[in-house]
């Protein structure tokens, strides 16, 4: 469990806007080992989104090194980055980003369509397994509009798992959900983490961060605090402690 999934050294990212240079990331260094559950926190403007884009191989750093599972991201071109995203990263978005009018199963299968080495049969089997692991086994043929927000996000998580990534990268994955459903999603994340999945969770909600094993706090493009969470809260217990129903 000591293998480094992520190794970032003095990462910098600058944007040129007109005659101004915006320095979004001003030298960030950290690494993430296999099996960690890291939350990256920070207010807006802290460089959180920029860091997320770079971690997700959607963007490349202006300076500094980024090794993802031993691959130097900086040296890759557009297509190689796409290949890396396809095999090493599982994305979970705030807005789920499921394809409308498409069954849950086909949504989950989607990343495997872009992996030439996977046969149609294997694609389907893996998608089914993936949906089972997020406890949506009986909702294969439902389209997103027939699913609740929490279920949609679980389909999205299944989609992120289907390519057996080295890291799940979640961007405000609970941002569109109510407290109860958020906790359910976090409980699922904790289970996946216990099974050995490395999770990087970007959020700005402190109570979500409490469920992780480590929190990296960003401020003005720099790491303000990087702390191990010794007192990890169980999402399952938090869920149980919520009032049964506050509808009236």
């Amino acid at each position, binding site marked *: 469990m000591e293998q480094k999934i992520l190794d970032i050294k003095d990462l910098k990212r600058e944007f040129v806007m007109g005659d101004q240079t915006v320095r979004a990331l001003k030298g960030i260094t950290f690494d993430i080992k296999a099996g960690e559950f890291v939350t990256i926190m920070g207010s807006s403007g802290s460089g959180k989104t920029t860091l997320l*884009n770079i971690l997700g191989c*959607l963007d490349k750093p202006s300076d500094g090194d980024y090794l993802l599972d031993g691959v130097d991201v900086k040296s890759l071109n557009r297509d190689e980055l*796409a290949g890396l*995203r396809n095999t090493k990263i599982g*994305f979970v978005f705030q807005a789920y*980003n499921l*394809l409308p*009018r498409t069954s849950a199963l086909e949504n989950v299968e*989607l990343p495997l369509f872009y992996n*030439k080495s996977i046969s149609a049969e294997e694609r389907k089997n893996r998608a089914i397994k993936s949906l089972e692991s997020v406890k949506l086994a009986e909702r294969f043929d439902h389209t997103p509009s027939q699913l609740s927000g929490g279920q949609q996000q679980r389909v999205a998580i299944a989609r992120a798992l289907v390519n057996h990534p080295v890291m799940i990268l979640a961007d405000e994955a609970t941002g569109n959900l109510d407290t109860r459903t958020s906790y359910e999603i976090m409980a699922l994340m904790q289970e996946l983490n216990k099974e050995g999945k490395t999770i990087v969770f970007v959020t700005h909600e402190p109570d979500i961060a409490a469920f992780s094993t480590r929190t990296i706090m960003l401020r003005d493009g720099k790491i303000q605090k990087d702390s191990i969470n010794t007192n990890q809260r169980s999402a399952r217990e938090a869920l149980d402690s919520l009032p049964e129903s506050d509808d009236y």
Partner: protein
Amino acid sequence: MAILNLLRIAFLALQRNKLRAFLTMLGIIIGVAAVIAMMAIGEGSKQSIRSSLSGMGSNTITIMPQSNEPGGVRLQGSSIQTLKMEDVTAIEKLQSKNINGLSPVVSTSGQAIKGAYNWPTTITGVSTDYIKIRQLKLKDGILFSDKDVKRFAKVCILGQTVIDNLFPDGSNPIGQIIRFKSIPFQVIGVLEAKGQSNFGQDQDDIILAPYTTVQKRITATNYLQSIYASATTEASSDAATTEISDAVRESHRLTEAESDDFQVRTQAELISTISSTSSMLTVLLTAIAGISLLIGGIGIMNIMYVSVTERTREIGLRMSIGARGQDVLMQFLIEAILISITGGIIGVILGVSSAYLISFFLNWPILISESSIVISFIVCAVTGIFFGYYPAKKASNLDPIDALRYE
């Protein structure tokens, strides 16, 4: 494998947006159907115009005798006795594919008599091809045979004017005997009325008989007034003329230095009318077809373009989970091609069936050419690729970060 995946991706994407895919297709369907239906009607009218112009004898070639003596008193062509049966045989021997009918013509005028009635007319001795060459039709009875020609049979076919004058009581002339210059002829056929020729000549004032009969029994000559031939098509008319000229020159043993002692005439004016009418119709049809298909193509481009904008987030998602630029490009391109090919197939079916419906209900002549189907189908597939490429390229160049955040 990769292309199969992309096909499936594109197919699923189309399935998600059935209505939009159908609306895009509609442009192509209507374009292709319009092209095929219009080409069918246009080609049909073209054919019927051609055949009615051909009915005026556009393929007919006439060989007339002519004096080649530059000095002296010039004689009228009909009194020159240079054309012989040997010339007909010489032309026959060519076995040319440009000539599909050949008949000698010997004619003489005289009084036709039937009982109390008589009528001054012309008897024309011909071979069996003559009817086909002159586009004449038998209304009743039969045509004389090659055997009749060999036997100098005393049989004849009458034109309507002759019948009107010899049989004013309306009795059936078939089987009756008439006399021409005191030779009895049995009437075996009746020609359909043709009316006046372009020059005001009554084309129904005619008696047709085997040329051998006319030569042996009436005129007692062995020369011909003229030879009629027909070219296979208008286009082969010129080639046929040259071949006939050469054959007759050889048969007349004319040296290089000597000029022709005959002339070969074609219906040049008619032929040029036909070909200019045909080419005008072709240009018109092609223009209509081109415009219809262009509009269909622009329809594809328009919808694909809107679709790229509308599906920006989808493209962003696909890229974030590992689709490369070229995967997205291929997906949109395949979508465009699927739309245009499916639209093309439906358009072909619709076009062919509407052409048949039009011909059935309006009784218009139609002619569905395979080329119009093949060409419109290929053009619509090509427009699909052509007009689908630009939006697809645009989609593939999107930045996944921007595309994901696109509202």
